[in-house]
């Protein structure tokens, strides 16, 4: 069987530094192929080469056995290769139907006709999405369905997903898996990048592991287990470090630093009350839509006050009501977003520029002199502490790999020396090795007396990190427990019922 796409000795460099180097890679028709590797290993770059976003600096590419070059993503699409980026490419202000047919609409298209056509088409794929709904109202899972529908509509034979499951709820993940299998049965080839090794083991036919810009190994999934993958990814074994079952001694509660009473906002936060204590990690678990992010954003002043409908927030025994994040930051409450691309970092700035901004934003006097030197010193310190990797020190944050961007966002928040730090999905898009580092780091923060709130949808992460666990459901905290008395089933029960 000729491979659908084949790369021979393909390299791509940025300013002379190899992002992928001498890569040999092939994708067969109708296979599901997982790409694994640490942050910055070159996974996304490799996929973008396949999808025509980047042109390789050397090496050759074969499509159906014939040499070919892909000049652009639309060129790739015309060859049957579609890519679904993690941050979607849909136009948020348009309807689902308009998005699916984007690019091939006739000059005067009757909206009704378009909607009916889309409805039929979506049903034929067994997708239950309303074609008239505006895309910005859809959750991550539905958006992904629309992207897939668009790709299938353009006769894609290969769909590439960059971290498709990172923003999905467990249920949506399950749907995604089924869908991937169904597409495969129809002869579609699928590549997906993931940091969740179980997903690769569960779903993929073959697995490719990348490290330091090279492909380390490609093999049938049955030849892999967790340890072999990790070994290939990081060059050493990590077993036992992550989500280990060993009993931890929970840190005792420090002083009560935050207490929230009867907080309400529209129908996303309903009359919720809870407290957070210094010197420990408070895990906030809940299903998507449980109002965890919204609650914490009100606490940190991120959500505008127009939506603030009542309740009291006390920080360090003082009632506070922040209308913007600035006073909260200055008082010592820092919120680290789950949506780094939209509200996380400054893309035109370097790592140093971003981190320095965190430092500057705490201060007051607008005319205080600053020097690039201060930024560089901070960057040196924090890139070392968090292990940020970039091709060089001048790299702009937009040029970093996803996981490394996350670390920069974290550093930018932590230079503000918060007393209470709220980490919303801190390890999203972060590789297994780095998750261990970030977890250790979070533990150090709590040990140093900081109050840390971790919002996570991943139960093992909550259990591994937290000293106290809060469970949210439908806009309020419904249960609170010590980690010693917590079990997965108990937490899950509280979150669902």
């Amino acid at each position, binding site marked *: 069987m000729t491979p659908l796409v084949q790369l021979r000795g393909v390299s791509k460099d940025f300013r002379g530094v190899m992002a992928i180097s001498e890569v040999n890679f092939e994708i067969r028709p109708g296979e599901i192929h997982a790409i694994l590797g640490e942050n910055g290993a070159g996974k*996304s770059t490799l996929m973008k080469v396949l999808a025509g*976003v980047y042109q390789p600096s050397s090496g050759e590419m074969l499509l159906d056995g014939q040499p070919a070059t892909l000049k652009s993503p639309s060129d790739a699409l015309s060859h049957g290769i579609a890519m679904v980026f993690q941050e979607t490419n849909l136009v948020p202000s348009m309807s689902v139907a308009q998005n699916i047919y984007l690019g091939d609409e006739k000059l005067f298209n009757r909206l009704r006709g378009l909607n009916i056509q889309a409805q039929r088409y979506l049903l034929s794929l067994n997708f239950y999405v309303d074609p008239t709904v505006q895309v910005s109202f859809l959750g991550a899972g539905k958006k992904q369905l629309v992207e897939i529908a668009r790709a299938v509509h353009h006769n894609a034979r290969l769909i590439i997903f960059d971290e498709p499951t990172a923003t999905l709820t467990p249920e949506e993940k399950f749907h995604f898996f089924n869908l991937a299998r169904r597409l495969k049965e129809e002869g579609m080839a699928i590549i997906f990048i993931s940091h969740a090794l179980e997903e690769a083991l569960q779903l993929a036919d073959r697995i490719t592991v990348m490290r330091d810009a090279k492909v380390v190994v490609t093999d049938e999934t049955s030849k892999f287990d967790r340890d072999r993958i990790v070994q290939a990814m990081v060059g050493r074994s990590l077993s036992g470090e992550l989500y280990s079952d060993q009993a931890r001694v929970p840190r005792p509660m420090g002083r009560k630093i935050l207490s929230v009473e009867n907080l309400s906002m529209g129908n996303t936060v309903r009359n919720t009350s809870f407290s957070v204590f210094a010197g420990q990690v408070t895990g906030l678990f809940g299903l998507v839509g449980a109002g965890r992010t919204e609650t914490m954003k009100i606490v940190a002043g991120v959500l505008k006050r127009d939506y603030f409908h009542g309740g009291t927030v006390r920080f360090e025994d003082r009632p506070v009501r922040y209308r913007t994040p600035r006073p909260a930051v*200055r008082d010592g409450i820092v919120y680290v977003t789950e949506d780094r691309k939209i509200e996380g970092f400054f893309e*035109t700035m370097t790592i140093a520029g971003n981190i320095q901004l*965190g430092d500057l*934003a705490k201060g007051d006097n607008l005319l*205080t002199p600053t020097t690039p030197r201060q930024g560089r010193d901070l960057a040196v310190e924090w890139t070392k502490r968090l292990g940020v990797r970039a091709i060089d020190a001048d790299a*702009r944050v937009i040029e970093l790999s996803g996981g490394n961007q996350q670390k920069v966002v974290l550093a930018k928040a932590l230079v503000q020396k918060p007393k209470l730090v709220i980490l919303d999905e801190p390890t999203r898009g972060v590789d297994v090795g780095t998750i261990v580092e970030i977890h250790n780091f979070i533990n150090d923060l709590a040990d140093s007396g900081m109050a840390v709130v971790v919002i996570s949808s991943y139960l093992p992460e909550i259990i591994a990190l937290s000293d106290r666990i809060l469970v949210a459901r439908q806009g309020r905290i419904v249960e609170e427990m010590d980690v010693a008395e917590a079990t997965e089933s108990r937490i899950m029960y509280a979150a669902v019922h």
Partner: protein
Amino acid sequence: MGKVRLSQEGVVFALAVALFAVFAVLLNNFLTAGNLIALVRSVSILGILGLGMGLVVIGRGIDLAMIATMVVTLSWVLSMAQAGTPFDTALAYGFLLAVAIGLASGILIAYADIPAIFTTLAMGLVIYGSGRAFLFQIDVQNTPSGVAWFDFLGRGLLFGLPMPIAAFAVLAALIALMLMRTRFGRFVYAAGDNPLAARITGVPLRPLIVLQYVVSSLIAFLAGIVMAAAVSGMSTRVYNSTMIYDVLLVVVLGGISLSGGRGGVRNVLVGTLLVGVLLNGMTILDITYTTQNLIKSLILLLAIMVDSFINPRDEQTSQQSQGDI
């Protein structure tokens, strides 16, 4: 993308120098002392205005009221001086008016969330209209005589440099220092790059926006002082000219992206040079105003197109190339 932008300044600079050389060789009126002084004068004023506009554009805004501010504040100041108010007092009033205009635009933009382009467009009309109605009556205001520093600002030399250009240089250095080396400057870049991230990081976003428009208003006032000193008066004709587009041309051609967060004083300098030489050359060539405007507008359109191609503002398009996480 770093490379592209770095060389953009280089390209613009080279273009300006080449144009200068061509005009110098081809036009025998170009290299005369009289013309060079006229060139320097117009370049200085354009450049000063460009500094203000550049600052606001870096912060993802735009100030289309600058020319109106310049004309109205100075016309008022001069007419007060003509009527016997001490010049310094009149200037103080002008200063306060400029601050008030900046505050008004800034507050509307920052707190009422009205797009900057409409706010300042309307603000320009309002200021000019009320200026004509309440503050001064005649079209051309003359400068008071006997104010030594003012005459010096118009015609004096500083280390051999005509004063207007010296004023431009000093202001450019100040703004560069402010942008690169103060907390305010870093905040402006942050707000221009990603306002949401700036807000969440604790940048006082709204006060910052207001401040930007106050600064650009004050810079317009300053440009007005230099202009009045250089040409011994202020005329409402300036308001009716296409000068605001020249200022925009300076900023965009120089490479300050309308999508915010990118560019700096260097870009204003090269942009000023190119636009200044171009305008002056066209005037000597005796190209009609209509044709000049057509040429300028085409260049502006082209520059904006190039800018939106290199620095897409729309998140959707930018993700085509930077898609992943």
